[in-house]
């Protein structure tokens, strides 16, 4: 398989990135609609327009696994669902940023000039986006634990644990190094271009 051009690795990866971009935007739209619908349902239930049993029945069919273990009344399960929407939103938003920057990187590689300053910038944005997703996940789980503790007056047990995915953190470190390598490569290329 060739490195560049039609039928190459780069063109295959670009096609995958194009599909991923459309998939992420679709997921963002669906998540937004689902979140609005759920918040609407919560508001109507609170106003008494909708039978609370309907909401509880809906929530009973949703299985989510945050980093928080809770044993208490089921009425406080709405923070878990809102947590899921928030984590999903951050992941999809971060994914859109990452895929967008990866597409721009591949466009640059295909043009034959990989070592340019803006490409190092793209890699930097990608690792920052990945770091933000991971830290947001941990922060939102901690916030969920606090909310469950505050909302539950029956003294149900809440335990919060941080699980660190080493693969993700290693990927972030690899990207940090790659971003610096590309930055140095861009600097050397610029120096070479301005060498008479």
């Amino acid at each position, binding site marked *: 398989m060739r490195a560049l051009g039609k039928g190459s690795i780069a063109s295959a990866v670009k096609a995958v990135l194009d599909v991923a971009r459309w998939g992420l935007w679709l997921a963002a739209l669906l998540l937004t609609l689902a979140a609005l619908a759920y918040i609407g349902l919560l508001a109507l239930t609170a106003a008494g327009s909708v039978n609370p049993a309907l909401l509880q029945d809906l929530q009973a069919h949703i299985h989510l696994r945050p980093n928080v273990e809770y044993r208490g009344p089921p009425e406080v399960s709405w923070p878990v669902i809102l947590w899921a929407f928030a984590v999903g939103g951050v992941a999809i938003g971060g994914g859109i940023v990452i895929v967008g920057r990866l597409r721009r990187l591949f466009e640059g590689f295909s043009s034959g000039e990989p070592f340019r300053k803006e490409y190092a910038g793209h890699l930097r944005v990608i690792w920052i986006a990945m770091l933000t997703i991971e830290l947001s996940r941990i922060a939102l789980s901690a916030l969920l634990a606090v909310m469950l503790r505050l909302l539950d007056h029956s003294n149900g047990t809440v335990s919060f644990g941080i699980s660190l995915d080493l693969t993700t953190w290693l990927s972030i470190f690899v990207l940090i190094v790659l971003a610096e390598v590309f930055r140095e490569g861009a600097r050397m290329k*610029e*120096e070479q271009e*301005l*060498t*008479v």
Partner: protein
Amino acid sequence: MAIRVTLDRILIERRMSLTDLSERVGVTLANLSILKTGKAKAIRFSTLNALCRVLECQPGEILSFEPGEGEIELAEAETEAAE
């Protein structure tokens, strides 16, 4: 960059245009313009050799060091560090 390239003065003295110089030295006009306007980051010895041969001059006649405020502060800091 504190290194200044003074091609203008010596071209006037030799009554030579930049185009003539580029043809005789074998460096493109674009690259010579980069050198003349001070945008160059580096110069090859082979280019400097060709320039000095064609212009019949020493490297010091076309290159000079004119430190700005930042360069002076850096030199003073290095002197203090050495002491």
